[in-house]
């Protein structure tokens, strides 16, 4: 046995002697995470249902303009879902199960993530502009100055929606920047055939 082989054997033995995680504790942690994931999906589904019901309620309580807005919002939600699915094509499954294929899949997912973030960004801007256009008659000072209830409604809409839109734009911009940096690193690594490249 050469000294090189001896080093290798010694390192391997040393490596395998590392203390392992407590499997029972790990199982409990994983079970908790699984429940959190399920709860998240349930909350998202609930949010969609609430938005859907709110759009339907528009038909009973609002003027024809807001009923039209509600109908268009339903179409908008459906169109967005279709676009999400379209953008995510090819990002569900890797071509193989080796690390290289799975990283290529991660790259495609990051690219799709950027497209989704851009879609969210621009659709939010378009939605806000369209809503302002529909709300134009209510926004005339003569209307809301004379109607305290309308004034309160507009104020509430402004107070609730403005921070949400600003936060969404900031999160999308941050996400896009982060994914771009990640893609650059992955491309370098994949292009080098990950053969001892400098990726840490």
């Amino acid at each position, binding site marked *: 046995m050469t000294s090189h082989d001896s080093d290798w054997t010694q390192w391997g033995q040393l*490596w395998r002697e590392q203390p392992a995680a407590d499997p029972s504790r*790990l199982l409990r942690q994983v079970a908790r995470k699984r429940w959190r994931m399920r709860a998240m999906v349930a909350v998202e589904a609930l949010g969609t249902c609430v938005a859907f019901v709110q759009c339907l309620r528009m038909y009973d309580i609002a003027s024809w303009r807001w009923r039209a807005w509600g109908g268009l919002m339903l179409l908008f939600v459906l169109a967005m879902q279709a676009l999400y699915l379209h953008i995510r094509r090819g990002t569900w499954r890797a071509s193989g*199960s080796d690390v290289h294929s799975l990283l290529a899949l991660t790259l495609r997912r990051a690219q799709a993530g950027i497209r989704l973030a851009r879609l969210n960004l621009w659709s939010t801007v378009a939605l806000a502009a369209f809503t302002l256009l529909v709300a134009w008659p209510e926004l005339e000072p003569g209307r809301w100055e004379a109607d305290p209830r309308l004034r309160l409604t507009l104020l509430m809409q402004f107070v609730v929606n403005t921070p949400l839109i600003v936060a969404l734009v900031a999160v999308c911009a941050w996400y896009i920047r982060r994914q771009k940096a990640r893609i650059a*690193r992955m491309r370098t690594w994949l292009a080098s055939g990950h053969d001892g490249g400098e990726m840490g």
Partner: protein
Amino acid sequence: MRHDGFDALLREHAGLLSRIAASYEADPALRDDLLQDMSLALWRALPAWRGEAPLRAFVARVAHNRGATHVLGQMRRPAGGELDDQVPEPRDGPEGHAENEQRRMRLQAAVRVLPLALRQAVTLAFEGFSHAEIADTLGVTAGSVSVRLHRAKAALKALLGEQT
């Protein structure tokens, strides 16, 4: 297989997963998170396992993929080229166990300093995987595995020096 099978699988491979997680993350809290993510990824991937590869290789593949995406997800580039100053130097003396522990920590730190491609190959080799199994897990040729392991040996030698 979904629950009982997964629990048994996790119990059986907790050591392998812990060691792979240790090769990607030095911070104990983050390593714990990574280990949980690896276990979850395994839980999701398990139904896709058809027995075409040994289960141990499948576990290592899923764990390495999760580990690699963990590294790629980090914005900052991990420090490379030198070992962490906080890793203690092994001492002479009768405390064999403590010295062994220090050597293990130095080896762990040295493996983490290796470029990702070398790190993946070397951790699998340490676990006793053959070149063919490593090639299959990483999606590269057996020749490439040999090159990586050769480079990894040289790098580890340089990093650990006479302390091995």
